[in-house]
């Protein structure tokens, strides 16, 4: 066969088909080729290698290109080997179980390391970076005020509105206030704040520490003698433990405000009545329930975020993965713990 014009990657697919269609013995005439690149040379070389094709009329440049691709003929695999699908799934399942076990042990170890870090900080408080903590207070707490306030305000309205629709059927709209008061103070204020903090700060912790791990900043810290746990993890933990109850209290107030405005405008209950009624129906223990849970949730969020961040090993893709895991883990743990708290508080009579 005679190839005319360009023997380049642009025509690679069609020339490949033509060569395959030719019968043996194959003679390839390159005298009509104007331009050849390595892909073209590869196609010709392959025909020579696999089918003993003869090449005629090759220009010196074409010859050198052919020699060159021949030199680089070292077949490489493109993807890692994969076994049969059944065994692969079995292997993946096994890996997953081992990985989950390791994560659990790792989390426990990380928890221990932070406790040691806390002990070190307490024994030598002067060396601790209080500036870092204050800065975290700002990022975790103060900067979250706007979004958490707005969210809680809207949730207050939604609870009021949904409650009113149902209770009106019994002519019992006044109980909307009981609903708003108890559910926001006891449950939703803290829970929604925890979810928002997990999404806002837990993810940021994981991403920050993960990135620092990749850029070897954390290794650099260790070699200088700065403990990453003390310098990075403890400030974040203190910030989220301290800020969570404050944010949760803020969220409760904003929800009550939202609910109050709703019942005033929609049900015609004046603000003064609303406040008096709230005082009557919401026991103080509800506030304690909400506020006791908050620092625990804050601790869980910081623990999961920092732990996942420190687990990042190799590449930037892992940072994203670990960040997602941190948020999922912390929200899940927060809800599990919330259920435990609910059972606990009602059994000690704070129902």
């Amino acid at each position, binding site marked *: 066969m005679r190839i005319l014009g360009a023997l*380049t*990657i*642009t025509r*690679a*697919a069609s020339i*490949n088909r033509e060569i395959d269609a030719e019968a043996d013995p194959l003679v390839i005439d390159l005298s009509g080729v104007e331009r050849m*690149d*390595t*892909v073209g040379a*590869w*196609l010709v070389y*392959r025909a020579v290698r696999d089918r003993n094709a003869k090449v005629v009329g090759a220009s010196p440049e074409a010859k*050198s*290109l052919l020699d*060159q*691709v021949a*030199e*680089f*003929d*070292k*077949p*490489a*695999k*493109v*993807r*890692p*080997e994969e076994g049969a699908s059944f065994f692969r799934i079995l292997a993946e399942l096994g890996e997953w179980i081992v990985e989950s076990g390791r994560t659990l042990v790792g989390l426990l170890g990380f928890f221990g390391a932070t406790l040691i870090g806390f002990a070190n900080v307490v024994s030598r408080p002067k060396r601790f970076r209080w500036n870092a903590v204050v800065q975290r207070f700002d990022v975790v707490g103060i900067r979250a005020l706007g979004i958490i306030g707005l969210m809680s305000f809207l949730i207050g309205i939604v609870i009021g509105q949904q409650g009113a629709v149902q209770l009106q059927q019994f002519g019992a709209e006044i109980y909307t206030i009981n609903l708003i008061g108890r559910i926001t103070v006891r449950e939703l204020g803290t829970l929604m704040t925890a979810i928002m903090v997990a999404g806002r700060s837990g993810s940021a912790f994981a991403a920050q520490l993960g990135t620092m791990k990749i850029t070897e900043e954390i290794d650099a810290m260790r070699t200088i003698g700065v403990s990453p746990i003390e310098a990075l993890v403890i400030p974040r933990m203190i910030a989220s433990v301290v800020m969570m109850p404050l944010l949760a209290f803020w969220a409760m107030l904003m929800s009550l405000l939202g609910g109050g405005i709703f019942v005033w405008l929609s049900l015609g209950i004046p603000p003064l009545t609303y406040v008096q009624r709230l005082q009557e129906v919401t026991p103080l223990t509800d506030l304690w329930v909400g506020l006791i849970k908050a620092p625990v949730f804050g601790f869980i969020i910081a623990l999961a975020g920092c732990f996942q961040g420190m687990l990042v090993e*190799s*590449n*930037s*893709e892992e940072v994203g993965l670990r960040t997602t895991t941190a948020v999922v883990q912390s929200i899940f743990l927060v809800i599990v713990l919330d259920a435990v708290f609910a059972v606990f508080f009602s059994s000690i009579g704070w129902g």
Partner: protein
Amino acid sequence: MKDCQPIITVRGLANRFGEQVIHENLDLTVCRGEIIGVVGGSGTGKSVLMRSIIGLQTPDEGEIEVLGENMVGRTEDEAKNIRRRWGILFQNGALFSTLTVAENVEVPIREYFPYIKPPLLDEIASYKIAMGGLPPDAGPKYPSELSGGMVKRAGLARALALDPELLFLDEPTAGLDPISAAAFDELILGLQKRLDLTVFLITHDLDTLYAICDRVAVLADRKVIAVGTIPELLALDHPWIQEYFNGPRGRAAADTAREHAEA
């Protein structure tokens, strides 16, 4: 340089980041078939110059022409034609971390020639990997499993995927041991001769400059202060150039180059 056929032309380039002026009235011409080395102190905007030429950074002023096409203010479609004809090796390899080395090499081919079938595609990737100087078992590895030198070679293999006419290399030998660096120089020189490449090379490596560059462009004071062969540059009386080439490292590199030439 006689009968220069310009492949990159930069005229009156200016780049500013806020108050900071990186380039001011910068001119540079790169001729077909040469290896041009770009040197300059840290922060003189070598990488910014490369990013401007390849269109990742829109310059504040100036004209840039690559392979006869205007690079400033063109549409994305027009740029595609040029992107097919160049290969770029970034400073840190910039391999796609979710793909294996071989899949990385296949990305540009798939993008421009989607009708090439997988078996042929895999073969092309294989010999590009060999061409980049990697062993065959590097093909199925992920970038995170590679050493620094291998990442550079894999990046080079990807840059060569489409048989480019023009190759941009951003500090290809930085972070390599001297043996690997010398091997990398050889590799680039060999590829340049065989494939008739034009190479735009940013480097700090004096040995590389002596070993493979036809001409050297010196960046200082926000512009290209001189372009020429190393002897031509040595004849100039600019303090930075003198210090650069006649400092202890410069002399050592010159000696090595002379010994190589004699041997």
